[in-house]
């Protein structure tokens, strides 16, 4: 059978299964089984083998640990302290509470790596306060939905761990790479709020003023969290611990902190563990089925043909990269970040290497592209999660609210492409 026919059969099958709402891992898996049986002639054990191979990994152990750590913070209400603290510190900017949400998200992002948890939590904590003080719901909900995506970029980030585990790139270097872009993006987003409110003052009430004393108290209240962040990231960047070890330490510290604040209940503890199990299993099942499908595509030669086809396109390396970006932006409207990543990497990563881009750099850029996907309809996870928390506002309100924030995010992709040093500088001096 010719390559074209095989590829078309597999891809059409995949798209059909996905469109009819079959679970993503099953859609990938069935197509991969078909490929294995019909075209490759390899035993179906590949599934168990790739599952074993991917998950029996020290690197991947960081995934449940980081999820657990974030969940402990989310479930025990420690985040409230964080939000109130951030509010005191940067809440006097125009559009104050919206800025605080973004700021607190940036800090929360350095504790947890899950965007969905962030959107849900801040929707519960921050939005009532915004509504009470007369914020336009579009600005409020937009900043919460977008703020959630900061958690994914600012390390520790689960998607970067998965990317590292998949590509066999150093997770510590990826974390270091995400640091500077994360901080820049956070400030861009805050700036977007400020500009919006300056242009249209009716969006937000006059920001509150806080005294120096109040701010100092807030800083002291936030200190334990900042300490956890500094320790968890510090030991990774200093090369003292691997990300996995540091994740374990972070998980323990989060329990200690929650106990110290008398916030932990056994139910919250249990809930956090189950969350870790659930998300890990979800990611793993998409991962190992996609690995098998990737092998099928490689075996029939589609991966190579795709790469050869893309490279000979007459647009230059940046033009080709732009095509990849557009593809991700479109895919991001339908897929969650993990599925999108593992489905496309078998094709995209050889291409990225061939074009002479760094895989570390690409990991970070991919995360931003995937983040945009998290807030674009029809399958922007953050939009749905937030809508679930604040059901009285239409999902369109949230979508419109996030639109202005897409601009700085897209700008960020362009900036990182023009200045890859922003990503690569920190990993370069650390390792």
């Amino acid at each position: 059978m010719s390559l074209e026919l095989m590829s078309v059969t597999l891809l059409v099958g995949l798209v059909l299964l996905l469109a009819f709402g079959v679970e993503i891992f099953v859609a990938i898996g069935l197509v991969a089984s078909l490929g294995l049986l019909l075209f490759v002639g390899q035993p179906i054990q590949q599934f168990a083998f790739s599952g074993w191979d991917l998950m029996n990994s020290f690197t991947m152990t960081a995934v449940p640990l980081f999820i657990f750590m974030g969940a402990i913070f989310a479930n025990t209400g420690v985040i409230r302290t964080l939000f109130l603290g951030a509010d005191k510190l940067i809440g006097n900017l125009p559009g104050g509470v919206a800025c605080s949400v973004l700021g607190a998200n940036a800090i929360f992002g350095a504790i947890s790596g899950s965007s969905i948890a962030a959107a849900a939590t801040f929707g519960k904590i921050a939005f009532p306060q915004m509504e009470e003080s007369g914020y336009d719901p579009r600005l409020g909900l937009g900043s919460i939905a977008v703020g959630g995506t900061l958690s994914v970029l600012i390390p520790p980030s689960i998607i970067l761990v998965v990317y590292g585990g998949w590509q066999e790139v150093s997770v510590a270097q990826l974390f270091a790479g995400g640091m500077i872009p994360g901080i820049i993006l956070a400030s861009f987003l805050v700036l977007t709020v400020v500009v919006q409110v300056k242009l249209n003052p009716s969006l937000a009430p006059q920001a509150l003023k806080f005294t120096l004393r109040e701010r100092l108290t807030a800083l002291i209240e936030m200190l334990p969290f900042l300490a956890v962040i500094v320790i968890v990231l510090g030991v990774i960047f200093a090369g003292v611990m691997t990300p996995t070890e540091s994740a374990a330490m972070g998980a323990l510290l989060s329990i200690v902190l929650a106990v110290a604040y008398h916030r932990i209940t056994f139910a919250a503890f249990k809930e956090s563990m189950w969350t870790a199990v659930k998300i890990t299993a979800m990611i793993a099942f998409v991962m190992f089925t996609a690995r098998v499908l990737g092998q099928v595509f490689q075996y029939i030669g589609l991966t190579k043909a795709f790469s050869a086809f893309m490279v000979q396109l007459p647009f230059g390396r940046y033009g080709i990269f732009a095509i990849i970006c557009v593809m991700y932006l479109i895919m991001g409207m339908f897929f969650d970040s993990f599925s999108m990543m593992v489905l496309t990497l078998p094709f995209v990563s050889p291409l990225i290497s061939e074009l002479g881009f760094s895989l570390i750099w690409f990991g970070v850029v991919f995360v931003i592209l995937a983040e945009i996907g998290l807030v674009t309809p029809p399958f922007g996870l953050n939009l749905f999660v937030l809508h679930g928390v604040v059901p009285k506002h239409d999902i369109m309100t949230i979508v419109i609210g996030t639109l202005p924030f897409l601009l700085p995010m897209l700008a960020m992709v362009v900036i990182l492409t023009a200045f890859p040093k922003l990503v690569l500088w920190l990993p370069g001096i650390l390792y």
Partner: protein
Amino acid sequence: MMVLVLVEVFMRYILNRPLMVADEFSGYILVALTFLGAAYTWKERGHVRITAMISRLPPRVASWTRLIGLVLVFVFAIILSWAGYHFTAFSFRLGISSATWLHTPLQVPQITIFVGFILLALLLIVEVAKAIVNVRCGRSIDEERAR
């Protein structure tokens, strides 16, 4: 499951004393956690799917589509169980053990893959049965998963 994660957290602390065990065992525990947790994840609607299109179909069509979808999931769970069985059986036959000083027999962690897939398949039998009953009664089986 929960205990496993707990053990895992403690495992990492063993590492501070330089034992070579944690490195190896955390991987096994992760495997167990993932595959034994798959059925739980299913029950909690934790596996992602794309509902953008199916939610726009008329309810009756959507129910039938979902039923077919569930059957497909069941088929895949059977494929996985079969794969898991052969994979584990292969290790049993050869008596493979890990290449570390512990010489852990790899069948032990590997059997969790098989068991996990079987659990998923069993759960799917129930799900498909429930879906059939619901479709015949004309009820919607695709409860809106707000994800």
